[in-house]
């Protein structure tokens, strides 16, 4: 029989108090765990999706909205830009790489993105099966799309108008799946990629069918008939650091379009979210402080009853040090259980949040572990020691002969 066994039995004697203390600790740790996991995942997603993109050019409006819709695919675009102007910018000498985007449709909530082969190079896309799109109405789908929708190479499907919902399905043209991407760990896992001509074809009026016969060549060839066409945005990669200063000004001052920097907008987004995160973080710290106080009060109050037990254990040969650790251990058991439970709650909650998230592009997962969680566990142990040290010191004050002679 060791002191762990005795401590556990002592705690089980007051099951409800122990349970409530464990729950209180777990709430504090759980909230912090959710915050750490969620903010890290969001940060990683923001970083990996915006990698190699220096600037986004789109219609005037909110620059954050432009970034969210064009890079993270979680908001509505600010509007469309003339394809003629967009292609002019794409050929600017300051631009190393420019990726045109044409948005507008979805399939079961997964966005259909019209682009060209530069998109493949920008994200370093690799195929798990099939091929990349090459003709109108051919698509290559992300790994998450394939997994969630069950689409396979050779399958046909109809896109729906808008970036979410199935209210307005384009039944006149079906897409065909030409390939499936390997998991990329970024937003492309949740995208359906096709050429820009497909997006035009889906949205053209019936009398445009004949005119569209030569559309592919127009887009991929020399962009001869661009006057009536539009794009959603362009993802720009600069040729040199010099462009950082010149190019956004060029766009904003000499065109009807706007340039938005992903780095700046992401930082702005994080500072906006950060206020909420900080509030929640302090709330969690407050809960943890309350839990420490609660554990302290429980242990301190129990010492009145426990002093007879401690005195009798001294009679039976236990040293003061042994009994000191017996009380410390009770605090540690409560807070360790609370910390472990809190981490479990954190991961479970995040998995549930992820499952119910509408936007698949920014989906959070509970199956994600951080080294910081180890520190959360340690902080749980720290709370246990802090909360139990004063009650444990009472052990040294117990007068055995007086306590046992007076009786209980």
């Amino acid at each position, binding site marked *: *029989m*060791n002191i762990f066994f*005795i401590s556990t*039995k*002592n705690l*089980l*004697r007051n099951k409800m108090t122990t349970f409530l203390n464990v729950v209180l600790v777990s709430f504090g740790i759980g909230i912090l765990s959710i915050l750490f996991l969620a903010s890290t995942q969001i940060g990683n997603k923001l970083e990996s999706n915006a990698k190699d993109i220096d600037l986004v050019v789109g219609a005037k409006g909110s620059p954050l909205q432009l970034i969210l819709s064009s890079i993270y695919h979680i908001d509505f675009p600010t509007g469309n830009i003339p394809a003629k102007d967009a292609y002019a910018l794409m050929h600017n000498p300051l631009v190393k790489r420019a990726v045109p985007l044409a948005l507008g449709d979805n399939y079961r909530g997964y966005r259909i993105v019209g682009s060209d082969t530069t998109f493949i190079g920008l994200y370093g896309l690799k195929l798990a099966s099939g091929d990349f799109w090459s003709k109108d109405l051919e698509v290559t789908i992300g790994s998450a799309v394939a997994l969630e929708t069950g689409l396979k190479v050779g399958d046909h499907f109809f896109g729906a108008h808008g970036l979410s919902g199935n209210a307005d399905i384009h039944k006149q043209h079906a897409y065909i799946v030409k390939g499936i991407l390997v998991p990329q760990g970024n937003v492309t896992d949740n995208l359906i990629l096709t050429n820009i001509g497909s997006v035009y074809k889906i949205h053209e009026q019936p009398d445009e069918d004949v005119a569209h016969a030569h559309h592919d060549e127009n887009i991929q060839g020399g962009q001869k008939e661009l006057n009536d066409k539009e794009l959603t945005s362009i993802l720009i990669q600069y040729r040199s650091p010099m462009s950082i200063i010149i190019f956004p000004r060029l766009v904003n001052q000499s065109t009807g379009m706007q340039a938005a920097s992903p780095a700046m907008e992401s930082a702005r987004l994080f500072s906006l979210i950060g206020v909420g995160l900080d509030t929640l973080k302090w709330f969690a710290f407050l809960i943890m402080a309350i839990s420490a106080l609660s554990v302290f009060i429980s242990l301190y109050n129990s010492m009145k009853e426990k002093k*007879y*037990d401690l*005195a*009798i*254990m*001294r*009679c*039976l*040969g*236990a*040293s*003061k*040090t*042994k009994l000191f650790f017996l009380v410390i251990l009770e605090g540690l058991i409560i807070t360790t259980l609370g910390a472990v439970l809190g981490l479990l709650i954190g991961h479970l909650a995040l998995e549930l949040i992820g499952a119910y998230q509408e936007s698949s592009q920014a989906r959070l997962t509970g199956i994600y572990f951080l080294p910081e969680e180890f520190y959360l566990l340690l902080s749980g142990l720290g709370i246990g020691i802090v909360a139990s040290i004063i009650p444990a010191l009472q052990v040294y004050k117990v007068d*055995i*002969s007086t306590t*046992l*002679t007076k*009786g*209980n």
Partner: protein
Amino acid sequence: MIKIASLAHAYPKGQRINFPDWEIETAEQWLLLGASGSGKSTLLNHMAGLLRPSEGSVEINGTDLYSLSARKLDGFRGKNIGIVFQRPHLVRSLRVIENLELAASMAGNQIDRGRNMQLLDNMGLSGKEMAYPDELSQGQMQRVSVARALVNRPDLLIADEPTSSLDDISTQQVIELLTFQAKDNGATLIIATHDTRVKNLMDKTYQI
């Protein structure tokens, strides 16, 4: 052998008791008599190494208790002295059998469940091994505390007013168990009491 020499205790309020010297041979059984407040419990606490005397010494089988460090004294008490108090003082979060195992564990001895079960059986507590103290009567709890005092085969068994809260039947049972078990274990037994029911049950008496 137990030797008490020049033992004195000074209370915080200035009162002082000087105890007569006392020599007890191994396995003897003594009744310690005295009126309430005469210092019986104080003397027993000195003999059990629970209360440091102002003067004098308590020697058990050649070991001067108060020459030991606090830690060594705790260990010595656990291994060599069994104590039964006026009230049973069982650890309420532990079952009956676990209370006995606690005694072995705290003294640093191996747990001998077979012997512990036998001790409980000897005390008429067979079938109560898994009960919690709250489920026992006062007499049963006191018998458990006697069994617990015997777990480590102590050289000295001290009982301080063990029957004061018991009815006549339980008193008879507890005293018989203490004397029989002490003899069976070869332990020296000292019972302090002012309970007149006990006075005729033992041969040797020491009056303070």
